[in-house]
């Protein structure tokens, strides 16, 4: 009996959280697509998410491309240059580019959003917004959702280029491949569907990261400790959801 009760309690709690997040997401989307917007705030978030994430995303991408080249050379050397270029392009544009950029942004941006909005919550700044007739969803949540969804695909585009470049550097300098041939096989292996799926993933990941950051910040309570907890929850839940949705989107694009 106690066992059943525990299962029931767990199930109800899980569905309650999913419900709360869905309502929050619906509210955030509603205010993202309906005027008035705050262009200054959207722009500031775009700079924060897009521009300031470039170094960390770029570094992640170049090393990933290089290591991918090393590994595929040891595994597929028998298949020749074209196969290695192919592995790198597919690996980077379809999976590693979006997933690694998404995870880095979750750590950088999701955490910052949760900490900032969480602090605003516990110091009554969010209540103050309401008393100044400003909707917190419009002012705090919508600009972050819009900016993240817009910037993540651009970041992933940059990550794709740098990642492939990393693979190119190792292949040419280390393995002595012919640069022209290598670039040609890289270009030939680039497929629209794979490339587009990567950008779609990026947009969805941007939404997930901003949603988790704002949701956990918005609902944080209990002072400094609560804000710390919100930050952790934002990064962990964004990372897990991101990997889950990576699987779902991959399945939708390529399973058929």
């Amino acid at each position, binding site marked *: 009996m106690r066992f059943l009760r525990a299962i029931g309690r767990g199930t109800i709690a899980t569905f309650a959280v999913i419900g709360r997040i869905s309502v929050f997401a619906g509210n955030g989307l509603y205010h993202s697509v309906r005027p008035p917007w705050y262009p200054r705030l959207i722009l500031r978030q775009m700079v924060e998410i897009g521009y300031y994430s470039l170094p960390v995303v770029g570094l992640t991408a170049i090393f990933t491309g290089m290591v991918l080249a090393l590994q595929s050379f040891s595994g597929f050397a028998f298949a020749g240059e074209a196969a290695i270029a192919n592995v790198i392009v597919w690996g980077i544009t379809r999976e590693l580019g979006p997933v690694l950029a998404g995870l880095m942004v979750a750590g950088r941006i999701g955490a910052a959003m949760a900490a900032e909005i969480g602090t605003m919550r516990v*110091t*009554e*700044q969010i209540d103050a917004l309401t008393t100044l007739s*400003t909707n917190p969803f419009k002012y705090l949540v919508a600009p972050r959702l819009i900016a993240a969804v817009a910037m993540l695909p651009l970041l992933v585009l940059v990550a794709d280029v740098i990642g492939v470049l990393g693979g190119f550097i190792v292949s040419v300098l280390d393995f002595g491949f012919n640069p022209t041939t290598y670039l040609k096989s890289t270009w030939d292996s680039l497929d629209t569907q794979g490339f587009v799926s990567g950008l779609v993933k990026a947009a969805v990941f941007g939404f997930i990261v901003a949603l988790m950051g704002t949701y956990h910040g918005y609902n944080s309570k209990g002072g400094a400790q609560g804000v710390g907890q919100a930050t952790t929850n934002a990064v962990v839940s964004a990372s897990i959801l991101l990997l889950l949705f990576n699987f779902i989107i991959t399945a939708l694009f390529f399973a058929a």
Partner: protein
Amino acid sequence: MTTDTDTAKIEVRDLHKSFGPKHVLRGVNLTMAPGESLAVIGGSGTGKSVLIKNLIGLMEPDSGSIRIDGEEVVHMASHERERVTRKFGMLFQGAALFDSLTVWENVAFGLMESQGMNRREARKLSLEAMIQVGLDTDIADRSPAELSGGMQKRAGLARAIATRPEILFFDEPTTGLDPIMGSVIDDLIVRSVRELGATALTITHDMASARRIADNVAMIYEGRIVWHGPVADIDHSGNEMLDQFIHGRPDGPIQLRVAS
């Protein structure tokens, strides 16, 4: 002129609010005339903050009615509610200034964001409001984090009055300030309220502050108003709870549950 409840600025009827098993507001009734300054006093955990949050619309009551200028605001649609909120100004306990904005942008926030005023004009009005609360305009471009507690309270007050609201709410305005700064803030509150001709509701447990600010006092205990009358009467109210509270006596009808 004021004949019945139609002309009340704020009218609260049988307001209830619970959090799970905790029944915080248990039928609050309160009427405020236009231009009246009321202090709601009571100990911690008696429902003062919950009452004010229900009034401004940060919380939705479980049952009961709140009328602002005769208009029912409980269960009002959110855009309608925003229109009513424009009549409000609020000074928060910790000032709640936006730390991503400068001091003048904070003060001008309501003017720019909700009234759509351009920056230049809003800055001018914002500086005027700052002078009105005794803030040096040199600090206009600083960040709120650089200000002392008293200055933050002043900036919070300037933000609350900048939009010239009809109703002002003050949440523990003197808490966390030294006694002198406390009375300075009280004086500013009295002056601002008078200058605006606003209706003011203050929640506080600071009796000295309540005496300075208010025309009328309402005491809340266990989620109900147990005494309501002019501030001049509080010393001979004949109400044991009010007596115990204003003299800060540990023994009496109010039992503090210290141990948990």
